[in-house]
C-alpha cells in the first residue's frame, strides 16, 4: 500500500497501483499540444499485464511516445509505414504491444499499449500529440478524454491557453454529472488562462467507499478570442506565419439551400425520426431572404417543390408538414437525387431567379451506399462534378458506419463543401442541427488571402468559396525573416452587398516578447500549425488526385513532411524500441480514415499568394493629398505675433 506518505488509505484489492496520471495541454493560438503521462507499479507477486489506453481526437498527430519498464526506456521514432513494419518484424518486443486503433466513437482514435511487467516492477508511459482547434459556432473546444481506469494517487490535469488576441470567454461545462463540482479551477487573464483539475483520491471514488474511479469521461473547455477590434489576426514567428480570419459584424448573405434527404428503408426508425425532428428546427431557422426546397429520395426521387421557394412562414410550415409525412422505404438512388437538386439550382441560376449576392448550398443526408440506378461511386462523383455549377457548395452528412464516408468526403471536397459523419442514435437530430448551424450563416463569398511579398512561400489553401459566421478560416505559410521587416496580407472577399478588402501588416517581432514572457507558450506553434494544416490538406488533395503520378507526388511530400515534423500520419508509423534495439513495438494509424482537418469547415484551393483580384487594386486617391475647403495649408508664414485663437 502506498498510503503512508499521502495519508490516504488505498485498498490493495488492485494488484497494480496507478501512482500518477497527469495530463498537460498547452494551446498557443489554436495549436494544442497534449502530453499524457501515467506511472504504475505492480504490487502483486505475479507478473501483470498493464494497459495504457488513451483516446485522442481523430485527426490529431502523435509526435512522441516513451515507455520506461523497470528502468528500461523505450523511445519512439517515426518511420515510413512499410519501413516501420519491417523493423518491427525483425525484433518484436516480447510481452509488449502498441497500436493505434480506430474507436467507434465519433471523432476519437485509441492509442493503446499493453505490457507485461514483473512483480514489483514500475512502468511509466508518456504520449505526446498535437491538434489544431477549429472554431465552431463561435467557440473553440478542447476535449480531454480521461479514462485512467483506476484510482490514481496523484491525478492532475493542467491546461494552459495562450491567445495573443485575448481570450474573450472560457467555460468548462460540467461533463461529469456534477460529480466533480468545484474541482476544476479556472484562472483567466487577458491573453492567458489556466484550467486545473486535480481531484483527490476521495473525490475520484465513484462513491465514498467505492474503489472504482468516477474519472471516466471528457473534460471540455470552450473559449473564444477577442474579435471586436479586428477582423483578422496575422501572427508571424520563426519564419512561419499563421493567419486567422473570422469577421463577425457582417450581414448574412441570402442562401439558396436544397436539402437532399435519404428516405430509403435503412433510414427506418430512429434515424428517420431524428432526421425529421432536425429538419423541422432547421427549416424554422431559415431567414426570410433565403430560398429553399426539399428533395427526398429512395429508389425514386421526389421533391417538395420542383423549384426554389422563398422561406416565408407559410412555405416553411408546408415543408415541415411534407417532411413529417415521409415514410422511409425502398432502395437508395443518390445519383438521381443529387442531379435533381443540381438541376433545380442550375435552372434557378440560369433564369436569374437567384439574388446575385446569394450563395447556393446542397446538404445531402444519407446513411448508405447507392443500391439503385448508378451504383459506381466514382461515376456518381463524376456526374455531380460535370453538372454542378461553380456557385454551388455541396455538404454531405453520412449517418452511421455503412455509408462510404470516403466517397462523401471526395464528393463534397471537390464541390466547395465538406462531409461530416453523423452518429445514428438518439442525438442524430442535435448533430444534424449542429452541422446546419455551422453553415446557416454565410457572411462572405470568394474569400482570398494574398501575401504580395515574393519571399512568402508554401502558403496553405488560401482561396475559399464561403465564410460562415461562427467559424474561422486559417491560412499559414513560410517567409524569410531576413528579407522582410513586416509581413503584409490583403484579404479580398464579397459580403452581402459590398466588396471587402482587408489589409493587415504584422511586424516581425510582434509576438517575440509575448511568447518569451510565458513559459507555457509554445514558441513552435506557427511551424506546427503550418505543418498540420499542410499535411491534412495534402491528404485530401491526394484523395482527389486525378492521376497516379500526381498522387505519388503528393504522397512523397506528405511522407517527407511527416518524417521531418516527426508525426504519425496515415503514411507513417511509430516504432517504439529499447536502447539495445532488440525489442520493438509498432503503432501505426488506422489506414482508411484520411480525414482532412477533422472539424474544419473549409476545403479551399490554392491561388498564387500574390494574385490580388483586379477590382481590389483600385485604391482611392491617397487620403492625404486631398485639397479641401477650409483647411488648405498656406505657404505663407504667419507673423510671429499671431497666437492661437481658442474659441469665443
Amino acid at each position: 500500500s502506498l498510503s503512508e506518505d499521502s495519508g490516504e488509505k488505498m485498498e490493495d484489492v488492485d494488484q497494480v497501483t496507478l501512482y500518477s496520471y497527469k495530463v498537460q495541454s498547452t494551446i498557443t493560438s489554436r495549436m494544442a499540444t497534449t502530453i499524457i503521462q501515467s506511472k504504475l507499479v505492480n504490487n502483486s507477486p505475479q507478473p501483470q499485464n498493464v494497459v495504457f489506453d488513451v483516446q485522442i481526437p481523430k485527426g490529431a498527430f502523435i509526435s512522441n511516445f516513451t515507455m520506461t519498464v523497470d528502468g528500461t526506456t523505450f523511445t519512439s521514432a517515426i518511420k515510413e509505414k512499410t519501413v516501420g513494419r519491417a523493423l518491427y518484424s525483425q525484433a518484436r518486443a516480447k510481452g509488449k504491444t502498441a497500436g493505434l486503433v480506430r474507436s467507434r466513437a465519433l471523432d476519437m482514435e485509441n492509442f493503446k499499449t499493453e505490457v507485461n511487467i514483473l512483480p514489483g516492477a514500475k512502468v511509466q508511459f508518456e504520449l505526446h500529440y498535437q491538434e489544431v482547434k477549429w472554431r465552431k459556432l463561435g467557440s473553440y473546444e478542447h476535449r480531454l478524454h480521461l479514462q485512467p481506469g483506476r484510482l490514481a494517487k496523484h491525478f492532475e490535469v493542467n491546461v494552459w491557453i495562450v491567445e495573443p488576441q485575448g481570450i474573450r470567454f472560457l467555460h468548462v461545462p460540467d461533463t461529469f454529472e456534477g460529480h466533480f463540482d468545484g474541482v476544476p479551477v479556472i484562472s483567466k487573464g487577458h491573453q492567458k488562462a489556466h484550467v486545473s483539475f486535480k481531484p483527490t483520491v476521495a473525490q475520484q471514488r465513484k462513491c465514498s467507499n467505492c474503489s472504482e474511479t468516477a474519472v471516466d469521461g471528457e473534460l471540455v473547455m470552450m473559449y473564444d478570442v477577442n474579435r471586436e477590434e479586428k477582423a483578422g489576426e496575422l501572427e508571424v514567428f520563426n519564419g512561419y506565419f499563421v493567419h486567422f480570419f473570422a469577421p463577425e459584424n457582417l450581414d448574412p448573405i441570402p442562401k439558396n439551400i436544397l436539402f437532399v434527404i435519404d428516405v430509403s428503408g435503412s433510414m427506418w426508425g430512429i434515424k428517420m425520426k431524428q432526421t425529421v425532428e432536425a429538419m423541422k428546427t432547421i427549416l424554422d431557422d431559415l431567414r426570410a431572404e433565403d430560398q429553399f426546397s426539399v428533395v427526398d429520395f429512395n429508389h425514386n426521387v421526389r421533391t417538395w417543390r420542383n423549384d426554389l421557394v422563398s422561406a416565408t412562414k407559410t412555405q416553411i410550415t408546408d415543408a415541415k408538414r411534407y417532411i413529417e409525412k415521409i415514410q422511409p422505404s425502398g432502395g437508395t438512388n443518390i445519383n438521381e437525387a443529387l442531379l435533381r437538386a443540381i438541376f433545380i439550382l442550375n435552372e434557378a441560376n440560369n433564369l436569374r431567379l437567384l439574388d446575385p449576392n446569394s450563395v447556393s448550398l446542397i446538404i445531402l443526408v444519407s446513411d448508405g451506399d447507392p443500391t439503385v440506378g448508378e451504383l459506381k461511386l466514382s461515376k456518381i462523383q463524376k456526374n455531380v462534378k460535370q453538372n454542378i455549377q461553380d456557385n454551388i457548395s455541396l455538404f454531405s452528412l453520412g449517418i452511421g458506419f455503412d455509408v462510404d464516408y470516403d466517397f462523401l468526403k471526395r464528393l463534397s471536397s471537390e464541390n466547395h463543401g465538406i462531409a461530416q459523419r453523423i452518429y445514428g442514435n438518439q442525438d442524430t437530430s442535435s448533430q444534424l442541427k449542429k452541422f446546419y448551424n455551422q453553415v446557416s450563416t454565410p457572411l462572405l463569398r470568394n474569400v482570398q488571402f494574398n501575401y504580395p511579398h515574393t519571399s512568402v512561400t508554401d502558403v496553405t489553401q488560401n482561396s475559399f468559396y464561403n465564410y460562415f459566421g461562427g467559424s474561422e478560416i486559417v491560412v499559414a505559410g513560410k517567409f524569410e525573416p531576413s528579407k522582410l521587416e513586416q509581413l503584409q496580407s490583403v484579404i479580398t472577399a464579397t459580403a452581402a452587398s459590398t466588396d471587402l478588402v482587408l489589409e493587415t501588416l504584422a511586424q516581425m517581432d510582434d509576438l517575440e516578447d509575448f511568447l518569451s514572457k510565458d513559459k507555457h507558450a509554445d514558441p513552435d506553434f506557427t511551424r506546427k500549425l503550418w505543418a498540420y494544416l499542410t499535411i491534412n490538406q495534402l491528404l485530401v488533395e491526394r484523395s482527389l488526385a486525378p492521376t497516379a503520378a500526381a498522387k505519388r507526388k503528393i504522397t512523397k511530400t506528405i511522407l517527407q513532411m511527416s518524417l521531418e515534423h516527426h508525426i504519425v500520419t496515415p503514411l507513417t508509423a511509430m516504432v517504439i524500441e529499447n536502447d539495445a534495439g532488440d525489442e520493438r513495438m509498432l503503432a501505426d494509424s488506422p489506414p482508411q480514415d484520411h480525414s482532412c482537418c477533422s472539424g474544419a469547415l473549409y476545403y479551399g484551393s490554392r491561388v498564387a499568394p500574390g494574385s490580388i483580384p483586379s477590382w481590389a487594386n483600385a485604391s482611392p486617391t491617397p487620403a492625404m493629398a486631398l485639397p479641401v475647403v477650409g483647411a488648405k495649408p498656406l505657404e505663407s508664414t504667419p507673423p510671429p505675433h499671431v497666437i492661437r485663437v481658442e474659441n469665443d
Partner: protein
Amino acid sequence: PHFIIYLPKSQKNVCFNIDSEPGKILSLVSDPELGISVNGQLVGAKKPENGKLSTYFGKLGFYLQHEDMKVEISTETITLSHGSRSSQLSWADTARIANQRVLVSVKKEKTVTLTLGKEMSFSILLHRVWKKHPVNVDFLGIYIPPTNKFSPNAHGLLGQFMQEPKIHIFNERPGKDAEKPEASMEVKGQKLTVTRGLQKDYRTDTVFGTDVPCWFVHNSGKGFIDGHYKDYFVPQLYSFLKRP
C-alpha cells in the same frame, strides 16, 4: 467643433467654432438635389474646463440617397448600410469596403476616405486621446475638397460655402488684446469684427497639426454663416436640413 473655411477666390481662411450640447446633430452639408447629406453629432468632453464644456464631432453620418447608402463613422466603428444590409469595420483594420460607386477606405487608426464615383470624396480623421485622460475624448475631423461638385442649392454649415461668398477685409488694427490684431470684414451685407488667429490642419501631422492662420468670426460664426447656428440642428444623423 472648429470650422475652417478656405475661400479660393479671395485666398483667405475664415474660421469660427460652435459649442453646443452633446448629442446635438449639426448639418454640415445638405444637398437634396444630389441626395447627399453629411451630419455631425456632438460628443462632450468628460467634464467642463473653466466652467465650459467643450464639444467635438463624435459621429459623422453620410447619406447617399441615390445609392440608398448610409455610412456612419464613429470613433469606434465604420458602418456601411445598403438598404437593409450592413457591413461594419473597425478603426483597427486597414480595409476597403466597396459597393457600386461608393468606396469606404479605412487606414488603421488614422483616416477614412469616402468616395462617391470619381466626382466626390470626403476625408475623416480620427483623433485618439489617452483613454484615461480626465477631460479629453476621442473625436473626428472631416475635410471636404473644393473639387467636390455639389449642386448650387447645397447648404449646411460647410455646404453653403461651396458657393464662395464675397468678403472684404479692411482696417486691420491692433485688437483689444495687443497680440491679437483685429479687422473689419464685410460679408453677406454685414460688417463683422474679426480677429486674427490660428487653427489646425491635421492631415499631414496627425498629432500636432499644422497651423493655419485665419480670420476668426465670433459668436459661433454669426454673420458669416446664414442665420443662426441653431438653424443647423437636425433630428437624425441622416436628415436633410429643412430650410425656411
